[in-house]
Each structure stands twice: as structure tokens, then as C-alpha cells.
């Protein structure tokens, strides 16, 4: 079975972000970028399925701006077999457009399983995997914390409000990966060097016929209101006294 993994390049999760002074967008100039952490978990899971003999080939795909190969290089260095990118000419892609472009890639590659992260840590939308499953008319399992392939089914344990739930999906299917699915392996320097030599196939988004015009317009980006500075208390007794006075106890 072939596995397709979608990866996104996002601002590194340790980097504090700011709005541009005019509030039009997020300041991204000169900010360190990295693979989206949930996508790294998706890549790791695909690699483990290959190591178990379940998967035969792993293809990583990234969409959008010219710089997105960074995330693909990371996936190649982790061990994926092949990478491709869909070039959109720098257009800002929203989840609906991402799902449509991924659908075009799925139709070309015919994978038995698509793995994506549960959300990207920049836009925090958490939609692309479910939208892709809808467009392909495939079953989906979101927020996976365990994944087993049993015959022609994927058995997935999902993290849901109040606990976990296990469901079984007929393949092909889309699975979105949660934090506790696995701990991604470290990329070794020689592998990173080797990954630089692997070709990344470039597809032209125009040839897919997908309309990726944004449906949602970003009007403003701003920092949330800061909380007022609090006080330090000297003892538990003083803390209880302050809480009683503020009326929350």
C-alpha cells in the first residue's frame, strides 16, 4: 500500500509571532520556519507502517509557496521515499483549497491511506483532512492516537472529549494525527545531506484545474488584550483571603 503524507511549512513553534504594524497580517519576514509538528507525527507514523511491512511506498506532498520544500526535505531526511510539491505561485492557501489540491494529488498517486496532521499550528484550523475525506468520499478518523492496519481496515483510536474512542475504517481512508500517536525520530545530519540530493517533483497547480481563490478574507490581525499585572502573595493564608475578597470562593 502506498501512503500519502501531507506536510506544511509553518513558523517554528518556539518562535513568538507578532502582527505587522498595520495589522494587515502576521509578521513572517526573517522568522524561523519548520515542519508543522503534527505533520512530523504523520510522517513518523507512515515510516513505522513501512517498517512493519504494511506500507510499500511513502510519498510526501507540500503545497504552496516556493519555500515549502523545507518541510519536504525534512520528511525526506526522516525517510520518506519521494516528495512532490504543488506550485501555486505564492497564493495563500486556505483549508478548502488545500483539500482540493490534495484531492488532485490523491487522484494522481492513488494511495491506500492519507495521513495528515490534525491541525497546523499557524492557522489552527484543523479542517484540511476532513474536507479531503469529504471530497474523496472516503471514511475519516480524526485526532488519532493509535493506528493499526488490519487487513483492509484501519483501526484507529481517537482522542475525544472525555476519553478515547476506537473506530474501524475501510481503506482507502484519511487519518489525521494527534500528539500522542508517536514520538517522531530525530533527523541525522547525513540523512539531511542525502535528502538534499533527492529530487522533489514540482506540479503546477494550474494544471489541476483547482480554483484556490480564498473564500475567507483576513481583515485584521492583532494581539489579544493583555491581562493586567497581578500581585504576588506571601502565604497560603493571604492567597485565600484575596480569593475570598475577589468573590471567586
Amino acid at each position, binding site marked *: 500500500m502506498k501512503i500519502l503524507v501531507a506536510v506544511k511549512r509553518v*513558523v517554528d513553534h518556539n518562535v*513568538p509571532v*507578532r*502582527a505587522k504594524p498595520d495589522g494587515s497580517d*502576521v509578521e513572517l519576514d526573517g522568522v524561523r520556519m519548520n515542519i508543522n509538528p503534527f505533520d512530523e507525527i504523520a510522517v513518523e507514523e507512515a515510516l513505522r507502517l513501512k517498517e512493519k511491512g504494511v506500507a510499500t511506498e511513502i510519498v510526501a506532498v507540500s503545497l504552496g509557496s516556493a519555500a515549502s520544500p523545507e518541510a519536504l526535505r525534512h520528511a525526506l531526511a526522516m525517510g520518506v521515499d519521494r516528495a512532490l510539491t504543488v506550485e501555486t505561485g505564492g497564493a495563500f492557501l486556505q*483549508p*478548502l483549497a488545500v*483539500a482540493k489540491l490534495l484531492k488532485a494529488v490523491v487522484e494522481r498517486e492513488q494511495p491506500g491511506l492519507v495521513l495528515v496532521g*490534525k*491541525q497546523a*499550528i499557524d492557522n*489552527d*484550523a484543523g*479542517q*484540511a*483532512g*476532513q*474536507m479531503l*475525506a*469529504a471530497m474523496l468520499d472516503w*471514511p*475519516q*478518523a*480524526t485526532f488519532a*492516537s493509535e493506528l493499526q492496519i488490519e487487513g483492509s481496515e484501519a*483501526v484507529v483510536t481517537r482522542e*475525544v*472529549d*472525555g*476519553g*478515547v474512542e*476506537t*473506530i*474501524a475504517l*475501510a481503506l482507502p481512508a484519511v487519518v489525521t494525527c494527534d*500528539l*500522542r500517536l508517536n514520538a517522531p525520530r530525530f533527523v541525522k545530519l547525513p540523512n539531511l545531506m542525502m535528502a538534499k540530493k533527492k529530487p522533489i517533483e514540482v506540479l503546477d497547480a494550474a494544471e489541476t484545474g483547482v480554483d484556490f481563490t480564498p*473564500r*475567507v*478574507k483576513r*481583515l*485584521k*490581525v*492583532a*494581539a*489579544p488584550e493583555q*491581562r493586567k*499585572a*497581578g*500581585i*504576588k*502573595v*506571601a502565604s*497560603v493564608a493571604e*492567597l*485565600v483571603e*484575596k*480569593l475570598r475578597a475577589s468573590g*471567586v*470562593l
Partner: protein
Amino acid sequence: MSVLILADHDGRQLKAATRRAVGAAQAWNAPIHVLVVGDDTAAVAADAAQLEGVARVLRVDAPHLAHPLAADVANIVRSLAGDFQVILAAHSTQAKDALPRVAGLLDVAMIADAVAITAPATYVRPIYAGNLLATVESSDPVQVVTVRATSFPAAGTAAAPAAIESLPAPAADTRVRWVSEAKNTSDRPELASARVVVSGGRSFGERFEELLGPLADKLGGAIGATRAAVDAGFAPNEQQVGQTGTVVAPELYIAAGISGAQQHLAGMKDSQVIVAINHDPDAAIFQVADFGLVADLFDAVPQLTKALEK
């Protein structure tokens, strides 16, 4: 124009977040219909019919919907979508699973986790783990939206209950089946809607529940945890507060042994009163805490529990 709200429930009662979704839906000043999908949902539907502002409750009951799966829920919502301009739900795991699928089927964008609705198609939503707020405007004919429940007021109780209408359930999507679940059976209030949340980090170690449990029970609160405490196995997954866990905004949030990583702050910084107990006076959590106590938590937490007994 009308609003359809997908109800979140556990099969027995409506979740508090749905009451707040109904509160959020007032923004459209349009008839509100609530959809209850499940098996034997008479009690849940009756709860929903009591909510102020609800014009009608739609019930879709079938044995295969006892544990509703995204494919089935999305098919039901899509079959109704022609009558509604807004499809709304609280940002729960059920809605996060099913509503993007609905949006994909309808070929419309989705707005996730809105914290304010400033005009009929304009929303404010957190991005980058809540470090920034984006104001966005959707141009789609149908608005598919999840709202952060704690950012909206709960709907009151209506003078007279709304009509409840049962609809036939479409056949199950046979390509996916429910196998099992393991739910937390605690008697404590649900984390997302608790009035008080007592949270701990990894430094509690094996004594996590032993130390925080009595304090939470004393306050009638829920227990939360950092990602590190969950990953280390000291607290169950569903207790995780943060960008990747549950977002809470209780009246009182007590953070004990929590340094205050961005990921965690994203899940609790809208709490009304924040108390931090940490031995490190420079911990980032003190920058958002209303009351900070620099102390060893193994002394301070039991002391606090004891002080509240008086």
C-alpha cells in the same frame, strides 16, 4: 435566513457548550433550529427545546447513531443544509470532526473556534496558539462555524418549549464502524464548562491526583493538566489544557507547578481569576496570574486544601 446548531451531547443530556452555541447564534437575529443526532435522544431533545431563542428541535434517531460518526453526521447535516444559511456548533471534538466534512461536502469554507461574531459573516478567531487574533470575513453563501463556547453567554430557559420534530435517519455509512470507547467516569464537573479548574504540571509526578484531587473536590472543580504531565502519564489525555487540548475559561483557574508555556496559556488565559503556585519566581505563568504564590507545591497545595476547609 435560519441557523442550524448541531447539538453536542452524551446521549443522556445536552452539553453546556451547546447552550452557549445557542447564545452565540443570537448574533444572526434569525430563527435557531437545533439538530440532535443520536439514539434514543428524547431527553436531549427536551433539554434543547427548553433553550431560549430555539424555534425548533430536529431529532434524528437510529441505533447506528448511538455513537455518531463524522460521515453519518455530515450526511445528515448536508441533507438539511438547503434550509439554512448558518451551520453552527460549539468547538467540541464532535464538531471539529464532522463540520469540516460538512463544509467539504458543501464546497464552502469553515470558520473554526470563533471567539466573537462582529457582523453576520465576520468573525474573530485565535491563530498561532492564541498569540494573535484574526478578524476574518467569509464570502460563502452558507457559513459553517464552530464557536469557542466560553466566549459566549449561555442561552437562558424559554417560557415555553420549542416544538420537537423527528426526521428519518439516512442509512449508515458502512465503510466506518464504531468499535469501543473508554470514557472518563469521574464525578467531577466537565473540564470545558467547570466553574473552577485546578491544574498541575509534571512536577507533581505520581502524586498528581493525590494532591490535586482533594483541592478540586473542595472547590467543586475539574482537574486540568499540562501536556508534559499527560505525556509523562501522570494525568489522562482528556485533562490536557492548551492549544492541542481543551480550552477553558473558568471563574477560577489554579495553576500549580505550571511554568506557563504558550501552548498551555492558549488554553486558559481567558479565565477570570488566575492563581499561580510555583517555586520559580521567574516562571512565565506569573505574568498572567492575578495572584501568585512562590512556594513549593508539595507544601502549598495541601495547605491550600486545608485552609479552604475552615
